[in-house]
């Protein structure tokens, strides 16, 4: 069964550093998403991406965050200057068309120290 692949599985970074989280969505999917789950809390929507542009972003997704799909396969989330409160599990998801279901990657655990 096709999978969404996320790398790295765990990243530790110092506060103020830039991080890039990588995702390879399922090849024929058209909608791409990033979600965040702070430890012990629910999963929160960050951003959606369709037709090579951001289609919606949440209040969490401020100027420190950006997304790219540079080569038609990878889908990246960049945090420009990490803060302690960015520590969370970040999930990438993709969908062929929303109502048919969404496939999540296994997540990247980001720890900011």
């Amino acid at each position, binding site marked *: 069964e096709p999978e969404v692949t996320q790398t790295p599985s765990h990243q530790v970074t110092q506060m103020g550093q830039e991080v890039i989280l990588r995702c390879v969505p399922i090849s024929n999917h058209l*909608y791409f*998403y990033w*979600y965040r789950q702070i430890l012990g809390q*629910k*999963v*929160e*929507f960050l951003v*959606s991406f*369709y037709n090579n542009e951001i*289609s*919606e972003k949440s209040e969490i997704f401020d100027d420190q965050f950006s997304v790219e799909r540079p080569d038609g396969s990878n889908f990246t989330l960049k945090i420009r200057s990490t803060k302690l409160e960015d520590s969370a599990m970040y*999930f990438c*998801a993709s*969908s062929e*068309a*929303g*109502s*048919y*279901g*969404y*496939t*999540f*990657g*296994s*997540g990247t655990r980001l720890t900011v120290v």
Partner: protein
Amino acid sequence: AQSVTQLDSHVSVSEGTPVLLRCNYSSSYSPSLFWYVQHPNKGLQLLLKYTSAATLVKGINGFEAEFKKSETSFHLTKPSAHMSDAAEYFCVVSDWSSNTGKLIFGQGTTLQVKP
């Protein structure tokens, strides 16, 4: 706006007994609803989905859920709990109001299965 409310933050059952995890939704149109499971330190796995076909939806590992429009509910059930079912369960609705299909997650229900 779309939303889901999981009525129990924690459910504890004995192995071999039925499981009921409750979810109510709010939607301005016919929703697509999902249940996801998350085992400790793992990712999100789709259990089942409702997309306006049959109201009783069967998923993996013996789970099923019934969409009840009159009650705005989408409760998850399983006839007999197994130790491996211990995990966090999320009720989720997709939101197409802004044409993005983003998912709105409930707060989650922790299922404990006692031997």
